[in-house]
Structures are given as structure tokens and as C-alpha cells.
């Protein structure tokens, strides 16, 4: 019934403030037996990080994505959904599931049912919520206590302009603005971030540098040297707006070669998005449209990821033991694979350290000591989108950031020029 909302630039401690406010509130009104905090995010990456923060507080909580909450509501309240003339969407039709969940949560009985277990809802990165997911948040806020944090400028989705969440929250609540940066106190990083936010030109000055690296090999050597000289045992991420030819080539070069300055080769792991993992595994799945269980088992065994193989073999065994099936369809196996990968990532925990390459989207809400940004030619989006992408990438860094740009031409355009 009460909303506490926070906004502020990247690294200003929004999540920290969320946790602090949460604990203060709980001191006055502790959780009852059986009650848990419900923490929601849009993406799995943010969910993992929020989960880690909540774990430190030693609270009873449940951290999930909005989509998985929506699926739970829809599947359990299917009877009411039908009464409201809503058809049951497929679990993987996320938008449709959220739409039905929103309609259900607008029924007081449903939101009270959620509130019976979760009197307080915490939401981070709310700027990423599209209208259909925002509707879920609005319905929860109508009857439960809501703690929410967002930064409009960190929204990378061009379709969310103007930002639905921000428009709503400004009218619905008093929003507290956080202004003091906590992630880094490196002046060069702070000035660059501020410039990008303001639509101004970011100044290249150590330890924030913008450099031309006109080929993948050039970029690979530059990032290799940078890592060799500046890493000092800290965490490093290689970020790119799009994992295309330029970024892939640069990372590959750095993993295979040593530079003229005797740096490298470095072991760098690409952190794949769920979509990419699925695509790769589907490519590896050699299976006829319809096959017997032994054939399916053999094909599953060749997928290469142990946890995926185990989960899929378990599914196959259930088909035989609980349903008495002799054959399965390829399309079914594909669906199971998608679900297994999705659930697997849902249960995956934190970063393992070391050198990681990933997209800017994949790095959202995370922080690293050093960041190398690979900025290629081949990217879409308007100027504003590019500024936001670079801002998101730069603000992941705590100590240093190197931006490698593929072409001279790019340096004369936003976000590097006005």
C-alpha cells in the first residue's frame, strides 16, 4: 500500500538504498512466520545479483523474475483466468503470460493471496519494464508495500521511450533521488559517465581512454596489453554492444596470440545469452522428426553440457516410466531443451571470476574492476541509444575503462562526438 521509490545514476547505490530501506521497514514491522520478501527483476542477470544482496541480509525472501512470477500466478489461478475469459498461454510466450497475470493480479483476491506470503515487494531496474510487466507491478503496488529502484537512462530498449515505469512512478509516488556515486571515485570515469548522461562529449583521459582500433587484430592486441598492464588480479569484462565480427575477432585474437609487448594470450570466456546457448545446442542436436527413446538418448548425450544432458535424460526417462512412451518428436525435445536451458540459467549462481566477454545488455547491473569496450561499425539504434549503451558499459567499471573503436568515422559521431 506504500511505495518507496528511488532513482539515480549508475553506481549511486540504488540497490544498497533499497536493502537499507527494506531492513528499516522490517525493524518496525517484522515478517510473520511463513512470510517472505518478494524480489523481482526483469532479467535473470539482475535477479542473480539481487538474490546475492538479499542473501547477505539473512532474510526470508524469494527472488524471481517477473516472468516466472507471472507464470506461477497464471498456472495456479487458471480457473479464475478462465472465468475472466483469458486463455492459458504457453509458458514460453512470456508477454502473453504477463498480460494474463496482470489481469489476474488486478483482482484483489489474487494480489491478497500473493501478499499473504509476500507483504513487501522489492523491484530493481524497474526502467526495463514494458507496459505489460509494469501492469503486474502496478497491481501489486495497489495492495502491497513496494520498494522500487530505477534509472531511466539505463533503459536500453528504444521502444520504452518515454519510459512507462518512470511516467507512472512520478505520478504515483514521491521519488527519492540518489546523487552520490559509490561504485567508483575515479574522476575520469565519473566525468565520462556524467558527460554521456548529459549528451556531451566524454573526454578520453586516464584511466578512461577512447582509442581507435581499426581491425579485430589491432583491438585484440590493445585489449591484451591493457589487461596485462592494468588487471592486477581484479575482475575484467570485455563488453560490446553487439557480439559481431569485430568483437568476436578481437577476443579470439587475444586468446590465441601474444602481443609485441609480450602480453597474452589470455583465457577469455564468452558469456552467452540464453538465446545463443539454445541456438548452439539446437545446432548440435542430430535427431529425426520422430525417433525412438534410444535414438533420442544418444542425441541428447552428444549435447556436450553435462547439466543439460542430465536434465534432458531425466525428462526422457519420465516419458518412459510415467507415460509408457516408446517414441518422441524432435519438436518436443527442442522445447524441453529450451526449458532446461532457461531453468538452468535461472538456478545458475553469480560470476565465477576471470575474464569474461559479453554484451552490454548481459552486463547490466553488474560491476567489474576493469572494462574494455569493443565498439564496432555494425550497430543499429539512434544516437540516444548509443549514448545509453556506452554509458551502461562505462559505468560497469570501478577502476579503469578502455573503449576501442573500430573506425575513425565512429569517433566523429555520438556518443563520441555531439
Amino acid at each position, binding site marked *: 500500500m506504500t511505495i518507496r521509490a528511488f532513482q539515480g545514476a549508475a553506481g549511486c547505490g540504488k540497490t544498497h538504498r533499497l536493502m537499507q530501506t527494506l531492513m528499516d521497514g522490517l525493524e518496525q514491522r517484522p515478517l510473520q512466520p*511463513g512470510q517472505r520478501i518478494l524480489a523481482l527483476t526483469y532479467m535473470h542477470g539482475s535477479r542473480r545479483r539481487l538474490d546475492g544482496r538479499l542473501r547477505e541480509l539473512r532474510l526470508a525472501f524469494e527472488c524471481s523474475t517477473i516472468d516466472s512470477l507471472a507464470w*506461477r500466478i497464471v498456472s495456479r489461478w487458471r*480457473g479464475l483466468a478462465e*472465468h475472466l475469459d483469458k486463455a492459458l498461454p504457453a509458458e514460453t510466450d512470456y508477454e502473453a503470460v504477463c498480460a494474463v497475470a496482470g489481469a489476474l493480479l488486478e483482482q484483489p483476491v489474487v494480489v491478497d*493471496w500473493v501478499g499473504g*506470503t*509476500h507483504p513487501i515487494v522489492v523491484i530493481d531496474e524497474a526502467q526495463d519494464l514494458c507496459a505489460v510487466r509494469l501492469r503486474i507491478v502496478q497491481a501489486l503496488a495497489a495492495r502491497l508495500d513496494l520498494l522500487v529502484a530505477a534509472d531511466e537512462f539505463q533503459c536500453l530498449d528504444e521502444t520504452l521511450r518515454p519510459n512507462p515505469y518512470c511516467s507512472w512512478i512520478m505520478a504515483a509516488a514521491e521519488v527519492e533521488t540518489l546523487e552520490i556515486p559509490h561504485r567508483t571515485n575515479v574522476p575520469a570515469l565519473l566525468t565520462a559517465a556524467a558527460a554521456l548522461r548529459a549528451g556531451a562529449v566524454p573526454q578520453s583521459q586516464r584511466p578512461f581512454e577512447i582509442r581507435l582500433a581499426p581491425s579485430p587484430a589491432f583491438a585484440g592486441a590493445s585489449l591484451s596489453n591493457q589487461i596485462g598492464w592494468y588487471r592486477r588480479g581484479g575482475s575484467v569484462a570485455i563488453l560490446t554492444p553487439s557480439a559481431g565480427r569485430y568483437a568476436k575477432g578481437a577476443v579470439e585474437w587475444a586468446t590465441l596470440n601474444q602481443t609485441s609487448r609480450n602480453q597474452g594470450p589470455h583465457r577469455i570466456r564468452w558469456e552467452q545469452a540464453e538465446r545463443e546457448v539454445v541456438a548452439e545446442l539446437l545446432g548440435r542436436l542430430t535427431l529425426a522428426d520422430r525417433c525412438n527413446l534410444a535414438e533420442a538418448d544418444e542425441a541428447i548425450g552428444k549435447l556436450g553440457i553435462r547439466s543439460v544432458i542430465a536434465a534432458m535424460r531425466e525428462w526422457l526417462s519420465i516419458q518412459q*516410466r510415467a*507415460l*509408457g512412451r516408446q517414441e518422441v518428436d524432435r519438436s518436443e525435445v527442442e522445447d524441453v531443451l529450451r526449458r532446461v536451458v532457461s531453468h538452468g540459467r535461472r538456478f545458475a549462481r553469480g560470476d565465477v571470476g576471470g575474464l569474461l566477454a559479453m554484451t552490454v545488455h548481459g552486463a547490466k547491473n553488474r560491476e567489474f574492476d576493469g572494462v574494455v569496450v569493443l565498439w564496432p561499425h555494425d550497430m543499429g539504434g539512434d544516437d540516444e541509444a548509443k549514448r545509453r549503451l556506452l554509458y551502461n558499459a562505462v559505468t560497469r567499471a570501478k577502476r579503469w575503462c578502455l573503449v576501442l573503436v573500430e573506425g575513425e568515422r565512429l569517433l566523429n559521431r555520438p556518443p563520441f562526438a555531439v
Partner: protein
Amino acid sequence: MRISDLSIENFRGIRRGTVRFKTHTIITGPNNAGKTTIIEALALLVGRDRLVRELTEHDFTGADPKPADRLRLIATITDFDGDDPNAHLDWFRDGRAVPKWLDAATGAVHPVRQNPAWLLCCQIGFQAHFDRSALCVETARYFHDHNHPIDPFVEDLPVGVPAKLLQKVGFFLVRASRTWDGVLSFGSELFRRTVRAADGQPAAAILSERDRLRHPDRPIEGDPHLAPLVTRINAELARFLPRGPTLKLRVTGTDSRAVLDAVVAHFSPAGAPPIPAARQGSGLLSLQGLLLLLQLGRARADNGEGFLMALEEPELHVPPASQRQLVHRIQALSTQTITTTHAPAVAAASDPTALLLVRNDNGILSAEPLLTEALTAATPAWKRKLMQSGRPDVIAALMHDMVLIPEGRSDHELLRAILCAVMLRQGWTEDSRHSFALEVGLIPTVDAQVVRTYSLLSRLHGSLCCLVDGDAAGRGYVRELRTMDPPPAAILRWADGWTIEHVVGWLLEADEAGTLAELSYLSDPPTSVADVVARLAGNKNDIVLYEAVGEAIADTPAGALRAVELFAGMAAACAGEPTPLFGTEAPGVRVFQP
């Protein structure tokens, strides 16, 4: 809290069926109809895990479950105070049940309350499947959210029901195969729970008894006969262990645990020394067990917890006079009772709307209340009489494979008097194929309401037959009965112009001289069979005369033989089989042809 509805699919002999429970339900029915299966289904749904036996293939209908076969049970729990889900968050919230609404009039469950009479309900589901490779039955107990099929063994497991929540239901099961000895001892879990619930741990008495046992006034080792041996042992011991311990003999382990374990219940008849419970007759044992359970029920009720007692055959080991009282006591001290019984006296003592008659037609279970509405002053006299004073007979009759509704009271009384006399004199061998007494139950019809009685009872039994006179009224009843939906399984009609009295005359005529001689002891002895028939017709319900006539028939060999033939013929006619005594007048209509 109360279990309102139970639905069963593919469980033992029940392929499909639903049962609607009242606060105090009595279930009766023939053997193998499914009474115990209903109780076991409840144990699987709301019982503590320990209550549930391990399931095997035999628990699936047909005993050979295929991988995709499922045993499915659903219980609907209602009577949540105020019917407000927000006031019962331990039942209705995320991670627990989804609130739904039961229309008690129809048994339908709705997602939204559209009628204030609908009750808030929580549905619990149970499924089992047989794993043919592991050779074991897998089970799942979960909140049943909606009526779309879900398979907990294939899809993501639905939300499980926590044991803590089921404790609130407080399901207690007393099986027919019960052994009560040792129940009033601290070794019995039931006793310990009852003591705990009643906050009745006798700590002071136990500690004082422990101390007395540690320091007895006359220690056993000090007995003059034993003391020399003990002294020698102590001396021997001292050789090996200087300053070693000395031997003491104590009755128990001398800690409070051992004292508790050693407690044995005794009962003392007035003025006589107490006798241990195990040496009592099973009647007393049975009573003490039930009484103990009731104390647990009372303690739970005092704490605001539920106490759902499922009791099989309370009549076991309990004298008939106490049976009704026992059932009433159990009902008074429980939040809900579900009792199965074979005793018509127990069944008849129940509220007729809460008495369920179960039957099983090829795996389809039906559990219908004896009456759908309570008897009131406005109820017609025939119905009140049939269902009040006639209730034990009605219930007993409905337990048979076939049920015969005679046109009038005198048919019932005369047939019963003759049957009774014949059976008492009959040996152990039964040579005819059909045994009327075993297979056909006789309804004590009132006021010639054969048609209305049929329509009142047709809901309760699949093989109802009617018996009417051979007069114009009887023919009218035949016509009326044949138009009913469903029509009786068979309609029996006496020969043209005949009533039951003529049939009795026909039986007496088997040996007119012999039967009249048997009746000669009457103060005003009849002079002929026609005289007897006239007297029977003139003095309806003269029970003394009925019994005299019945005995006269049974005591003359020719009469007894003819009576046995008549009953066998009636049983065959009810079963729709050919018999020379009953011709076929129209489909389903059989006419007596002497």
C-alpha cells in the same frame, strides 16, 4: 474445518465416484461396496504420512496399472470461519492453496464467489502411478488448483501440501482391524499425544515413584533367601575391582522414562482388586481405546484444532445397547466424524440425511444419503413412518443385492413371519439356486404406497423390485410403475384376484390337515384354510396370528417345502430369471401362477 467432498478415480474397486460428507456422516453398504476404500482415500489425502500404507499395484483398479494410469483423489475442505481467505492465510496464500468456492447444493467448485451461500474451500489432490521399472508406486499430494488435468509425475511438481497444515485437520483413523491392548500406556503414541494435548504429564507422581523405586523399603537384594548369594557376588566382584560397586536389584531402570514405560493400565471392578487391561474382554479394550481417542479430540477442540475421526465399524466388540451411545459420544467430541458400519442399529441412529448408502456398480461408486431432506411435520405420514420406525428395516433391506417393495404392510409382515419360521427350522443346506433371505431385502411399505416408496428409494439401489396384488389396484400400480424412469428391475404381481392372504392359503393347502392341526392350539381354532385366509384378511397386522401361521407352515414338511419354493421363485423372478411359479405378463412384469 471439514471435508465436504471426496472424489475418487481408479482406486481399488472404485473406478470413479464422489462422496459428499456432512459433519457427522455414517456410511453403510454391502461388503466390497467401497466403505473402507473411502476411508483409505481420506487417509491418503489428509492423513499423516505414517497413516498411509505403501501403495502397490493392488491399489489401482484392475491391479495391473500401465505407466500412464493414475490413481487420483481430490478432497474438498470447507468450513473456514467467516469464509474469508484473508483470515486463513495459513491455507490461502502464495505457496499454499488458491481459494475456491463450493456450491454445497451441487458439489460444483467455482473460482469466484457468485452466491453468498457458497463456501470457501481448499482442494487437496493426490495422485499415484506405478513405476514398472522401479516396481514401486510414486505418489504426490498437492494443492488442487483447477480442474484441468495435471500430471505431477511429468510436469513440474505442483505445490505440495505441508504436513504442518494437515495437522490442523487432525485426521484420526480407527481401522476395523484394530488392536487396542497396550493403548492406555506410555508406549502407545496415541496415549502420549493425548497426555501432551491435555497437558497431563503426571511428572510429580512419576518422579516420586522413580525415587521410591530407587530406594525401596525392602530391597530385593536384601531378601534373606537371596542375600547370601548377593554377598558372595559382591565379594567376588571386590577381588577384581577394589572399592567396586555392589549389586542392587531394582524393579525398573530407575529413570522416569523406565517408570513411564513400566506403567500398565488396570481396571478394577467395584470392590475387587485391579485386573490388567490385557486380561479384560475385548469389549472393554475397545471402549478404552475409543474413549482415549475422544479425550484427544476434546483436548484438540479446546485448543481450537480440528479433530476428524474416521471410524470403521464402531459396533465391533461393543454391546448393541452401547453402540448408539458410543457413536453419539464420538460425534459430540469431534469436529467431524466419518463412520462406516454394518450394524443397522448404528446406521438407523444417524440423521437420515447424513447416512450414506454406498454401492458399487461395476466400479462406479455411488454414495447417496438415505434422505435428501430432513423429515418434518409436513412430511406425509407414510414417509415418516417408513423412515422413522421402519428405518432399520429399510436400511437392512437396502444392503441386499435385490430389494423388494411389497404393496402393503401385511405382505411384509406375513412374508417375514413365514420366512423367519422356515429359516429357523431349516438345516444348513440350501438346495435352491436363489436364497431369498440372502439376496432379497424386504421393505416395510406403509399404507400401500408402493409407487411412492419406489420413487423414494430408486435413487438408492440399482435392483429395486415391486410386489403388488392381483386386483384392479395392483394392475394400476403395475401400469404406473412401468412408466417410471427407471422402471423397477422387476414387478411381481400375485395371481388374478389374489392377495398375500391367498398365497398364504395356498401354502397352507400344501397340507391342509397338518397345518390346521398345528393351529388348533389357538383359543378359537380355524376350521379351514378359507377360514384362516378370511381371518388374515380381516385382522390386518395381527402379528400373533401371522407368526402362528408362519410356524404352522414351517412345521409341516409339505408346507415348508412349498414355502421354500415360493421364496426361491420370488428371488428368481426378482432376478429376472425363469421360474415356473412366475409367468411373464409383459417385459419386466411377472405374475404368480400357483
